[in-house]
């Protein structure tokens, strides 16, 4: 389990530097997002989810929602849910998912072309593997994924400075860590 790597120091350890990365992702509105370019200058709280997961992943999303609420939806903190199941999580699907959480500004759900998403996930060390797969009466295959359970925080220079277990970390911990740098 990944614990907050830095709780009370002013200069957090840089876990990954994504400043030079360049990925073209798509948000729930079908708008192109250049990552990290479009989020530069903001803190980014990023969690990894897929919409076929109705139990653990909503806990990850809910944690991000709570952080945004507690902070009072500040302009300088962007919230992002990245789908590691881009084949099924199209922008339309992500839009419905976002609606179920009643979210507004500064909260994006991102998907991408599968190849791009695989490269992006590699760069942030998010792993997935196909697990359970079942067939319904129509012979339609339903599969599920085992996946990293992660929320991470990027600073305005697109450097990953904090990482957490996504579903089980108390939002307050993440808020406290953010307060040490923001």
């Amino acid at each position, binding site marked *: 389990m990944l614990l907050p790597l830095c709780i009370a120091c002013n200069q957090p350890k840089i876990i990954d530097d994504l400043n030079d990365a360049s990925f073209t992702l798509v948000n729930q509105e079908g708008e192109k997002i250049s990552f990290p370019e479009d989020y530069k200058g903001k803190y980014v709280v990023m969690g990894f989810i897929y919409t076929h997961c*109705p*139990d653990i992943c909503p806990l990850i*999303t809910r944690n991000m929602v709570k952080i945004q609420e507690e902070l009072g939806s500040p302009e300088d903190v962007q919230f992002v849910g990245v789908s590691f199941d881009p084949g099924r999580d199209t922008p339309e699907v992500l839009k419905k998912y976002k609606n179920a*959480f*009643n979210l507004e500004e500064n909260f994006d759900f991102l998907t991408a072309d599968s190849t791009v998403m695989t490269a992006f996930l590699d760069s942030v060390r998010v792993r997935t*593997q196909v*697990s*359970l797969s*079942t067939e319904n009466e129509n012979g339609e295959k339903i599969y599920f994924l085992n996946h990293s359970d992660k929320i991470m925080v990027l600073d305005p220079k697109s450097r990953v400075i904090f990482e957490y277990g996504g579903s089980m970390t108390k939002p307050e911990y993440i808020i406290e860590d953010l307060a040490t740098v923001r």
Partner: protein
Amino acid sequence: MKNIFILLPLILSLLSCTSQKKEASASVNGSTSEAWARPAAKGAMSAAYFTYTNTLDTADTLSSLSSNVSMMTQLHESYMTDDGLAGMREMKNQVVESNEQLVLEPGGLHVMLMRLTNDLAEGDSVTVTLNFAQAGEVVVTVPVKPAN
């Protein structure tokens, strides 16, 4: 035998709803865990949570499940794989010992509602039918509540 299993948070709403069947031994447990299901879109997945108490003198087995809103319904458990990934697995033939509870809550056991046949939004309700080897058919109705 048909048991109607009524959950604590539902009692109030049932008072104003006379169409509900109330025969059989309504087993209401005092657990604080609320009964609810997640909002989700048609075709997507949802999960339902509640606590069931086996009030019989013998152990019971949950043989199958169905619901009025999903094409497939299973009992699932969220767990951590050996190499630290979050996963879900089906819990077939889950045993509930006599006078013990089957606790369904986020991050643990859940009724997995797969391929929803309609949108689930706040204010809707979901009826899950549990088929137990001993207790027979147990019907649980839970309200849809916001995901956060």
